[in-house]
C-alpha cells in the first residue's frame, strides 16, 4: 500500500447492488473464461468472488467448434469456442449443488437459438436452487444461430429481455455486443424492456491469418477479440451506457489489474467482469480485491458503490472550450 493510508485498517464496503441482488464485491468471473466455476475451486475460494458468470448454457449439450479455437494476438486473444457446453439440465444436476456448497454467487449465462429457448431456460433456472441472476447471452460472435441475432437488433433485444422478465423473478442482465454502431441504444432497449442491469462488452468480431499457409488461424475463420487490446474501447462503451441508462452497468473488456477495474468503475460500471486475465493468472482475484480495497482506503471512500460513475470531465471540457 502506498503513502497516505490514513484510513489503513478501516474496512471498506465492497458490496454492490444489481437489481434486487447484492454482490459481496464488484468482481465477477466472466462467462466463458471460468468454466462452470468448479474447475477453479482448487486455486481460488469461489465465495471470495462477487459472482461467477458460468459458461454459456443452451438447453441441450453442445460440441462447439473444432480446434483451433484460440489464437493469441497483440495484447489479446481471439476465440471461437462455439459454446461447447453441458446443457442446462446437466448443469443443474452436476455443477450447481457444488457451487451452492462453496457459497458461490452464481450468474447463469443463457443462450438460445430462439426466443422460446431463452424463456424455457429462464423458467428452468428460476426453479433451481442457488441461481442468483440470469445473464442473457445475446452477443456471442461465434455461432450463427440465435443469440447475436437478438443482440444486433433493438427490437430483438427488447423482445428477448421482456419475454424472459415475464417468466422469472431473478435479476436479468443482457450481455451486449460491441459489434454495433451505438451500444448505448441497446442498453436503453434493455432498460425499456425491464432489464435489471446490462453487462458489456462481449468480444469484438475479429480474425487472424497465417500468411505462410494463407489460412485463417481459427477453424471458425472469425472469432472474438478479448484482452487488454480492447480495454479502452470497452471503457468508452461503459461510459456511454452509464450516461444513457439508470440501471447498473457491469463493465468488462481486458481488465487485468485493480487499476483497470477502477477505470471501469469510474467510467460508470457498478461491477466488472474479468475473463482473459484469469487465463494467465488464476490467482488474480485476491490481487484485484486487495488493490481495490487499498485504493478506497487511500482515497477515503467508504463504499465502492460511491465510486461508480465519478469520472470528472469538467476540467477537460473547460480546457476544450477555452482552447
Amino acid at each position, binding site marked *: 500500500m502506498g503513502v497516505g493510508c490514513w484510513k489503513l485498517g478501516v474496512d471498506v464496503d465492497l458490496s454492490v447492488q444489481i437489481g434486487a441482488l447484492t454482490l459481496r464485491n464488484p468482481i465477477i468471473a466472466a462467462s*466463458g*473464461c*471460468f*468454466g462452470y466455476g468448479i*474447475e*477453479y475451486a*482448487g*486455486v481460488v475460494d469461489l465465495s471470495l468472488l462477487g459472482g461467477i458468470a458460468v*459458461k454459456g448454457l443452451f438447453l441441450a449439450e453442445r*460440441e*462447439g467448434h*473444432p*480446434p*483451433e*479455437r*484460440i*489464437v*493469441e494476438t*497483440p*495484447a*489479446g*486473444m481471439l*476465440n471461437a*469456442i462455439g459454446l*461447447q457446453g453441458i446443457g442446462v439440465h446437466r448443469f443443474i444436476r452436476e455443477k450447481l449443488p457444488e457451487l451452492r456448497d462453496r457459497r458461490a454467487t452464481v450468474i447463469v449465462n443463457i443462450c438460445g437459438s430462439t426466443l422460446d429457448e431463452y424463456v424455457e431456460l429462464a423458467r428452468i433456472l428460476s426453479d433451481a436452487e442457488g441461481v442468483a441472476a440470469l445473464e442473457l447471452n445475446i452477443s456471442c460472435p461465434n455461432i450463427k444461430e440465435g443469440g447475436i441475432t437478438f443482440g444486433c437488433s433493438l427490437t430483438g433485444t427488447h423482445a428477448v429481455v421482456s419475454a424472459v422478465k415475464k417468466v422469472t423473478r431473478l435479476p436479468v442482465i443482457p450481455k451486449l455486443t460491441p459489434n454495433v454502431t451505438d451500444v448505448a441504444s441497446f442498453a436503453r432497449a434493455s432498460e425499456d424492456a425491464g432489464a435489471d442491469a446490462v453487462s458489456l462488452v462481449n468480444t469484438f468480431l475479429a480474425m487472424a491469418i497465417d500468411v505462410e499457409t494463407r489460412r485463417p488461424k481459427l477453424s471458425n475463420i472469425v472469432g472474438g477479440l478479448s*484482452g*487488454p*487490446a480492447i480495454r479502452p474501447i470497452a471503457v468508452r462503451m461503459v461510459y456511454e451506457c452509464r450516461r444513457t441508462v439508470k440501471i447498473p452497468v457491469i463493465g468488462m473488456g481486458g481488465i*487485468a489489474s485493480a487499476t483497470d477495474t477502477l477505470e471501469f468503475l469510474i467510467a460508470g460500471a457498478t461491477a466488472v467482469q474479468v475473463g*482473459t486475465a*484469469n*487465463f*494467465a*493468472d*488464476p*490467482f488474480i482475484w485476491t490481487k484485484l480485491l486487495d488493490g481495490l480495497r487499498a485504493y478506497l482506503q487511500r482515497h477515503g471512500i467508504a463504499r465502492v458503490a460511491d465510486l461508480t460513475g465519478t469520472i470528472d470531465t469538467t476540467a477537460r471540457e473547460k480546457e476544450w472550450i477555452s482552447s
Partner: protein
Amino acid sequence: MPVDVEARVIRNTRLSTDYNVIALAAPEIAAATAPGQFVMVKLGHGSTPLLRRPFSVFEILRTSGRVDGLTLLSKRVGVTTGMLFDAVEGDVVSCLGPLGRPYAPVDPPAEAWMVAGGVGLAPFATLTEALRARGTTVTLFYGARTGRELFYLDWFRERGVRLVLSTEDGSAGDRGRVTLPLERELQGAAGRSLMVYACGPEPMLAAVARVAATSHQPSQVSVERVMGCGLGGCYSCVIPLRNGPKGHHYVRSCIGGPVFDGDRVVWD
C-alpha cells in the same frame, strides 16, 4: 492442487541452436509432479505474451536427496520458447503446476516402450524414474531430424534404458520416422505384455497409436493442443475422443489429459 511459483532460473543449458534445458527453482511443484504432468509458464510482465504456455516437466532436480527444482526441455519456435532460450540465471519465470492427468506407469512383467519425437522427449525422464522404481524394463524409441538433435542419451543409458534411435537424415539409428523401428520391434514382440507411451507431434502420436493397436498393444499418448489456461477454463485445448461406434466428443486436454489412451483419440 496446483501452485503458482515465481521461479528463479538456476541455469539454462543450450543443447543446440534451438533446444535448451532450463532449470527452475520450483521445489513445491517439482515435489508434487507425476510423470507426464505439465506446468503453465509465463515470462515477463507485459501483454506479450499474454497467455501462459504449457511445458511437460522434464527432470525433477534433487540435491542430496531433497527436491529443489525442475527442468523444462524447450525448442525455440515462438515468443515464449524464445524467451526461455534466452533466459539467464537469476531471471524469474512464472510457473503454474503441476497440471494434468499423468501417465500410468506399468509394473513388471509388463515392459514399457516409450516413443519420443523431438521435444516430445520431455515427459520421459520422470516416467523413466517412476518405471525404474517399479523395476519395469524400459525401452526408449527416440526420433529426431538429425543425430545432433538427439539429447540426453547418456542420461537414459545410465538408468538402464535401452535406446532405439532414428533420424530423418539417417545420421543416427534408423533413417526415417520413429514409428519405423517401433513397428518392426512390435512385430517381433507378439504375445509380450507391453505398454506403449508416446509424446511428440500429433501425426506421430496417431501413427504410434495405430501401430500399437495393430499389434494389440495398449498405448498412452500425451497430446499438445493450443492451450489458454491449463485449468479447464477456456475450452481451447480440446481433442476428440471416441464416443460410441461413430461419434466423438471434445475433451479438454488440460484436465482430461494431456495423457489419453491412444485408442480413444479420434485422429484425423
